[in-house]
C-alpha cells in the first residue's frame, strides 16, 4: 500500500495512463460502432463520430436474427441460473451441514473436478447428450447445470460453513428437518452468496460459445455468442456493423456489472473465478 502524500502526483499520473490504456479499446469500440462505414475507413479512431450513425445498430439488428438469438440466450441464462443455484445450494448444504461418512472424500472430488480441463470430457459428453436425444436442444446446455457446478458448490459450501451453528441448532429444536433447515434458515441467510452464484452463472452462460458450437445446429436455437461468431465471417468487411453488434452483445453484461459491482468483485476475490 502506497501512502506517501508526496508520491500522489505520479501515482495519479500512472493510474490515469493505465486506466486510459485499459479503457481506450472500449471507447473506440463504442465510437466506431456509431460511425458510418465511410467515416470508419477514413478516421477509425477519432473519439467522437462526425455524424452519429445510430442506423448501424438497426442495420446490425436486421442483418442477423437478433431477436431469436437474444431470446435463446435469455432462455439459456434463466435455465442455467435456476439450475446452478438450485443444485449447487443443495449439494453445498449436503457437504457442509449434514454430517455423513464420505463427505470429506466427496468434497475432495468436487474440488478435483473444479480443476479438470473440459477437453477430456468433451467427446463423451457429446455422445451422452446425443444418446439421450438432447442434441440440437437448449436442454443440452441447461440440463448439466442441474447436476451441480464444482466452482459454485465450493463457493456456497464455504459460505454455508460461516453460518453460526447456534442458528441451525435453534431450528432443530423447533423440529425442523434438514430440508426445513435448508429452506428456512440457510437459504434466507445465503442470499448474497446465491446472488453471486447466479450472477456468475448468468455471465458464464451469456458468454458461452463452446456449448452452442457443439450442441446446436439450428439457427433458430442459436444464442447470441454463437450467432455473433457466425456473423463475423459473413460480415468481415463491415466493421461498423460488427462493432455495433459487439456493443449490443456486451452492453447487458456491462450494465449488470455496474448494478452488481460489489457482488462481482466479492465473488472474484473469494474464488478467483473469472466472470
Amino acid at each position: 500500500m502506497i501512502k506517501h502524500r508526496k508520491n500522489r502526483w505520479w501515482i495519479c499520473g500512472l493510474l490515469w495512463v493505465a486506466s486510459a490504456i485499459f479503457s481506450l479499446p472500449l471507447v473506440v469500440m463504442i465510437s466506431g460502432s456509431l460511425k458510418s462505414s465511410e467515416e470508419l475507413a477514413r478516421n477509425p479512431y477519432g473519439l467522437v463520430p462526425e455524424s452519429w450513425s445510430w442506423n448501424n445498430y438497426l442495420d446490425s439488428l436486421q442483418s442477423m436474427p437478433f431477436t431469436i438469438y437474444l431470446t435463446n440466450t435469455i432462455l439459456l441464462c434463466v435455465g442455467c441460473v435456476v439450475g446452478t443455484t438450485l443444485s449447487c445450494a443443495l449439494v453445498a448444504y449436503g457437504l457442509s451441514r449434514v454430517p455423513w461418512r464420505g463427505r470429506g472424500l466427496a468434497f475432495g472430488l468436487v474440488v478435483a473436478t473444479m480443476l479438470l480441463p473440459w477437453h477430456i470430457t468433451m467427446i463423451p459428453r457429446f455422445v451422452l447428450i446425443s444418446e439421450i436425444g438432447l442434441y440440437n436442444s437448449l436442454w443440452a446446455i441447461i440440463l448439466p447445470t442441474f447436476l451441480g457446478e464444482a466452482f459454485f458448490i465450493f463457493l456456497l459450501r464455504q459460505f454455508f460453513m460461516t453460518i453460526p451453528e447456534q442458528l441451525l441448532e435453534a431450528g432443530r429444536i423447533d423440529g425442523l428437518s434438514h430440508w426445513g433447515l435448508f429452506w428456512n434458515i440457510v437459504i434466507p441467510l445465503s442470499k448474497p452468496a446465491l446472488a453471486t452464484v447466479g450472477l456468475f452463472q448468468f455471465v458464464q452462460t451469456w458468454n458461452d460459445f463452446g456449448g452452442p458450437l457443439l450442441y446446436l445446429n439450428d439457427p433458430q436455437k442459436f444464442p447470441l455468442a454463437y450467432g455473433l461468431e457466425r456473423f463475423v465471417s459473413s460480415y468481415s468487411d463491415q466493421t461498423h456493423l460488427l462493432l455495433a453488434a459487439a456493443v449490443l452483445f456486451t452492453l447487458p453484461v456491462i450494465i449488470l456489472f455496474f448494478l452488481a459491482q460489489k457482488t462481482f468483485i466479492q465473488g472474484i476475490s473469494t474464488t478467483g473465478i473469472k466472470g
Partner: protein
Amino acid sequence: MFTGLLFCSPWMIGFLLLFVWPFVASLYWSLCRFDLINRPRWVGLDNYLRLVSEIGTDQGFGLALSNTVYYAALSVPLSVVIGVLLATLLSAKVRGQSVYRTLVFLPSVIPVVAASILWLWLLDPNDGLINYGLSWIGMDSQNWLNQSRSAFSGESVGVLSGWISGEPLRLFGSKDALVLMTVWGVGNFVVIYLAAISDIPNALYEAAEMDGASSIRKFWHITIPMLSPVIFFNLVMGLIRSVQTFTSVYVLSEGTGQPGGSLMMLSLQLFLSAFNDFEMGYASAMSWILFVVLLIATIVLFRTSRYWVHYRVAA
C-alpha cells in the same frame, strides 16, 4: 448418511455421468481408432505414439503444444506482473480510486466473442489502433494476426539484424496479439490481488515507514512477500486457463488456427481433430496428455495449498 447423500445426489449423478463415465470412455477411445459413427477399433498405444512422435515437429500435436506453451509462458507471467503492479497502484488511496478500479476491471467482463471482434479490428496492421499507438512512440507497425512468426522465436534474430540494416522491425505475430488481448483482460486477477493487499496489516507498512523505507522497498519487502501465496494461486489458475483457451482463438482465426497454424492451440487442435478429421481416438489421447500435464500443476497447487488457504480464510 442418507440425507447427506440425498442433498448431494445432483452432484453425484453429475459426477458419474459427466465425469466418471466420460473419463472411462475417453480413456478407452484414446486406445482406439474411432470416428463416432463406426464402432471403435482397438489400436493400443498407437495414438499416444503418434502424439509423442509429433512433439518437437511443426505439425499436429507438436505445433499445438509449442503454440500453447509459448502462449502460456508469455501470458501467465505477464498477467501476474502487470496484475500485481496495477493492484499496487490501484490500492493507493487517491481521489477517484473506484473509477480507476472500474476502468481497469471492465475489460475482463467483456464477453470473449465481443472482445475478439474488437481486437480483430484494433490489431489491423494497416490502420489498427494498436499500430497507430506504436507509431506514436516511434515503432514500426506490426503484422499481429497476419503473421505466424512470434516475437520470442529464433527467427526474430534475423528480423533484428534486418532492422539494424534499415528494414522495418516487424516482431509481433498472432500469438503475441493473443497475449496482448489476454493481458487486457487481467482485471479479474487485479481484483484478487486487491483483496489480498487490503488484508495486509497496516502495521507492517507503518513499521517500515518508521525505519525510513522507500515505497519501492516496501513494495519489494512487504507487498510482494505478503502477496506471494495469491500470486502462486493465480499462476496455477492462469496456467490452467491459458491451456484451455478456445473461444478467442476460434473467433480470431475463424476456427482455422491460421495464419500458418500459429493460432492452433491445443484445444482448437483437439476440436478439429475430433470433429473435422473424425479422429476421436487421437483427440482423446491428446486430452489425456493435456490432463496429465495439468494434473501435475494441480498437485503442485494442492501441495502448497496450506499457504494460500490460510489467507483465503482470513479474507
